[in-house]
Each structure stands twice: as structure tokens, then as C-alpha cells.
């Protein structure tokens, strides 16, 4: 099998790599680039732990080949904070206790980001639908939904985080 030379743009930075065509984006991010914030759970599209943004849209990175993401703008959880300052969605997850073991959190937060980018004032139902591709085995979802609602209000400038 011929290896492919490709360039992945992740969180604004270009990375050159040589990889097998069958390498998934999740593998490339975690194993080649060392960006282990992206998690892998089921590997078949069911759990959403591997969610990243590709050109602003959420995808399951376990079901995208690394080469399919070449030339596109990839955002992982590592790209959300501004230096030491957490993104308002991350702040809200901490503030609301929406993180327990944390395995689902990177994917959950990126799904929330895509949702709020497209719909800055979602209803509770829209939040639940927006997060429907992300499973959480710990929180029971309620605190996650509250965190996203609260982050939406912060991002709309209706409240400030202390």
C-alpha cells in the first residue's frame, strides 16, 4: 500500500504527515499529531466521542479518513481555548458540573460549538437535538443541556462569567 503525503490544518497550524490511506482522522490527530483531546469510543459513528469540526461542521473523526480532511480547516478541543482562557462553552461546562469522567466532553463541546455557531439562541429541544450524536454515560445530560444554554447566553452577551 502506498503511503500518502498530506498536510492537515489543525487549529490553524499546518502539519505534514506521511500515512497509510486507511488511517482515520481520529488516529492521525491522536497518534501522529499527539492531540489526544479527541477521544475514540465506539469507532463506528455511534458515540460522538471523536467529534471534531471540519470546515466548521461536526464529523465523527473515526469515520473520516485523514486524507479526506487534508486541505480543510480542522478544529479539535485543543483549539478552543484562547491560551489559558477557556472558551465560554468550556467555562459553562465547568461551572455547571457538566463534566464527570470527561470522556464525552471534547466531542460534546465541539457539537455545542457547531450548534451555537449556527443557532445562537437554541431552545432546549434544539440543544438536545444538536447533541444527539454525543453519548454521555455519566451526567444524565441535564447539566450538559444547562451548560450549553448558559454558554449561549454568555455568547449573546446576556450574562458574564465571573
Amino acid at each position, binding site marked *: *500500500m*502506498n503511503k*500518502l503525503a498530506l498536510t492537515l490544518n489543525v487549529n490553524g497550524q499546518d502539519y505534514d504527515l506521511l500515512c*497509510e*490511506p*486507511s*488511517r*482515520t482522522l481520529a488516529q492521525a490527530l491522536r497518534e501522529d499529531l499527539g492531540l489526544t483531546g479527541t477521544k475514540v469510543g*465506539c*469507532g*463506528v*459513528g455511534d458515540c*460522538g466521542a471523536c*467529534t471534531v469540526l471540519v470546515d466548521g*461542521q*461536526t*464529523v*465523527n473523526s*473515526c*469515520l*473520516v*479518513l485523514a*486524507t*479526506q480532511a487534508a486541505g480543510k480547516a480542522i478544529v479539535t478541543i485543543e483549539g478552543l481555548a484562547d491560551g489559558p482562557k477557556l472558551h465560554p462553552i468550556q467555562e459553562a461546562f465547568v461551572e455547571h458540573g457538566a463534566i464527570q469522567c470527561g470522556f464525552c466532553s471534547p466531542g460534546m463541546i465541539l*457539537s455545542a460549538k*457547531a*450548534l451555537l455557531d449556527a443557532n445562537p439562541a437554541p431552545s432546549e429541544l434544539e440543544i*438536545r*437535538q*444538536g447533541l*444527539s*450524536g*454525543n453519548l454521555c454515560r455519566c451526567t444524565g445530560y441535564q447539566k450538559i443541556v444547562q451548560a450549553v444554554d448558559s454558554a449561549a447566553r454568555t455568547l449573546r452577551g446576556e450574562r458574564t462569567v465571573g
Partner: protein
Amino acid sequence: MLLPRFDYQRPRDLSEALGLLAQAGDQARPLAGGTDLLVNLKLGKVTCRLVVDLDGVAELKDVSGPGEAPSLGALLSAAWLAKQAGGLGLMGLAEAGGVLGSPQVRNRATIGGNLCTARPAGDLCTALLALDARVVLAGASGRRELPVEQFITGPGLTAIAPGEILLAARPAPGATAGGSAFEKLGLRRTMEIALVSAAVWVQSEADGRTVKAARVALGAVGPTPLLARAAATALVGRPAGTEAFAAAAQAAAEAARPIDDHRGSAEYRRQMVAVLTRRALERAWSRALEATA
């Protein structure tokens, strides 16, 4: 879960893609969104030596202009349909796109992939069947068109020949003169393969009362998405409304061939066919009136 090893090509146009597929024979697989193919490769249900990524073939993303007979390129995604198909007068297809899988899956899953996978519960397959759509196929020996009904031949089986590429799905030219709707029932409300689904299309006579034409398609209650012809017959020529819709819903339930499994009994599925058909008809009819006005 790891993918098996394979070679990868990303052709830049259709003739290059067809050439690669012809050369590799049954060792090659086209790749669209990958939400079925990559899963099946990981699970070992499909094997192949070469993956031919269709993403570079621009004409597979073509859409017909407003006023033209609708034509939807095979690579258009479920998320695209959810946003755009309503504007083309194809609300049933927009609704089907909007409830397929999860947001992440919708961003990748394509029309062509849904048709070629040909699951009995395929949401886009069922919605396209109600719109009397045809599929356009290209192969080494030229192009051909088939109605969706003939394209899907069994569970996971289609009439596509080795080396062929599905170019587009074309709802019937008259589809936009009527209204359509899609209803899906699962054990949970999102991220669920249908337990039962119903896709309907209806057209009104100029009087705004009488049903001129209708199609009712059912998902997950047979080996393929089914066309319930008797349900359409129960509607055509009758005044639209509770009575006609109830008769059509009953006929649809009788046409269904559901099975018992761990997700639900055949009897439950049959009853839900009637409920979903009636709900879809109510919504589709109000859209049909807008299309007639």
C-alpha cells in the same frame, strides 16, 4: 476499531473515476460520506483493495436550477437536504435528511450512499420513492436511468452494475407541483434507524379539494422501502380530509410487510404505519395546497 489496509485514489473527474473502477473490478469501492462503507470495512462486512473517493468529481454535487425538473447530485449530504430541499419544493426529502442519524452523520451521509446501501429503513430511499425519483447511473458503456423502485432490489441489494457510479437522483418532474412529508418513528427521538417510516406525496386538483395524484412509500416494513399503491388509490379522485386520509392509512397498514424483532412487534409496526401515514398526509396536503395556489 481499525480499518483494514487499502489503496486510495481521488479522481478529479468522472471519466477518471470510471476508469479506476473498471480497472480494479470488484476489488474497488467508491467512497462518498463513508458512514456505511468505513463502518462495514471496520466490521469486516466489506473487503476491498482500492477505495475510490468520489469527492473530487464536481458534477456529483450538481443541483438543477429553480424551475427545472429537480435533479440532486449523488454527493449532496443529508444536512444539505435538510437545509435546501424545502426551497426546491421537496419538503419530504428535507424532513428525511433532517432526521437521518445524528448531526455528525448528516454532515457526511450522502444521497448516493443511502441509495446504494439500500437498507429497508433507508430514510432518503423512502423519501425518494414517494417522489417517484429515478437514479442516473454512469458506467464504462454510458448512462442509464432507473426508477428507485427498480434500482433497490432487496435488503442491501441494488441494480447497480460493477464499476457503475450513481450520478444523481431525479424526483419526478411533476414532484414540485405537489406537497410531500416524511414521518419516522424510532425507539428514541433522534439518532435512530427507523422502526417504521412513511413518506408521502400528494397533489391537489385546481379546486383545492380533490386529490389529483398521490404516492405513499413505507420504510422498514419490508425487504425494501415499499410503495403502497392501494393507499394512493384510496386517495386519488376523493376529497382530501379525515376520511380519505384514514382510508389511505388503513390501506398502507395492509400493504406493510413488517417483521417481529427485538425492537418491536410486527403488529405494533403495522399500526404505526397507519398513524405515520395519516400524519404525513395531513402535512403533505397543506403543502400541496401551497404548491397549487
